């Protein structure tokens, strides 16, 4: 049933929000601490549990997948209700933060991928796979 998927998603989101509130109270923060992240972990756990018992029906997948597919439209609606006028008053901040982040992260990618030593490139992997195929394919 499709509603099972929607209900599963709703239960995970509600539980995550509740646990996030409790975690916030435990930490002494007047805020929801990681509720969305906890809900995601619950949903991943729930999916594994259902799949292991062969209960992961197409209806459940549809019920959750539909909302996952609406993620970008909802983010657009979220963007459309922001207070952009006052954000633009301190415009350079956005530019500096975004470009700074980009430079630091690109540098980190270069560093970490080189630290790990040489690995096969996509081209080499593809060439090896083609060689591994029987010649009379």
């Amino acid at each position, binding site marked *: 049933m499709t509603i099972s998927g929607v209900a599963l998603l709703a239960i995970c989101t509600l539980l995550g*929000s509740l646990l996030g509130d409790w975690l916030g109270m435990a930490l002494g923060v007047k805020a929801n601490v990681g509720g*969305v992240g*906890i809900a995601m972990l619950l949903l991943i756990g729930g999916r594994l549990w259902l799949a292991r018992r062969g209960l992961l029906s197409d209806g459940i997948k549809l019920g959750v997948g539909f909302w996952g597919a609406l993620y970008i439209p909802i983010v657009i*609606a*979220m963007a459309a209700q922001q*207070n952009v006028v006052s954000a633009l*008053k301190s415009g350079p901040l956005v530019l500096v933060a975004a470009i*700074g982040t980009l430079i630091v992260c690109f540098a980190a*990618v270069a560093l970490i*991928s080189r630290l790990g030593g040489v690995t096969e490139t996509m081209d080499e992997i593809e060439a090896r796979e083609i060689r591994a195929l029987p010649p009379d394919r």
Partner: protein
Amino acid sequence: MSVMSTISHTLSANGLLTAFALVGAILWLSNLISRYLTFGRIHGSAIGILIGLALAFWAGLVTGGQKGLADVPVLAGIGLMGGAMLRDFAIVATAFEVDVVQARRAGLIGVVAIGLGTLLPFLVGVCTAFAFGYRDAVSLTTIGAGAITYIVGPVTGAALGASSAIMALSIATGVLKAILVMIGTPLVARAIGLNNPRSAMVFGGLMGTVSGVSGGLAATDRRLVPYGSLTATFHTGVGCLLAPSILYLAVRALTQS
């Protein structure tokens, strides 16, 4: 006149449906722009978000309100569609696509990349906000979280009770980062060794923003996309978990001392 009033009555009485129709039209237009004006280099989703922010800017000027398009009476449904409830609901739903077996293959280096990809942008964001004169822990954390991704920013801001202006700054930082990742990745791919699955996974974990990573990798080498998206999928969840909690507490401890 009465025709106009019945139209506006229908639109405002069915606010959420009006919002679906409007956002659908925005995304349809964005995908056309993406395909024909940027030749697929900038994702339709990123253009859609930019259009959303632009409309919010226009609405803010016209209405003088603080909630963008949601302040236009006929478009109040945008407030429900993009509000905290449906937003969190949809974000949690994306976790369903994570394949745990595939994820384990990313291994330790993926975890390191996701950790660094959360910490480094956050540090840059917080330092920039500090340099621009922000001193309170909530604003600093929200802007820093926006530098992680444009989802982590508002989720963190909402959790901490940041003002809408700070939220908008935070989202704008994340959106700009995503767009710059899409445009910049093909340009620096060779220099940062982005030609194998492992570096793609490192890249996904560090850059985080799913639309930025999938767009940037698609423009670099289509075959790298699944590897980068794999680690990038975890990024937002980890950010949403860490930014309003440990990172906020760290910033608060530093600003109070």
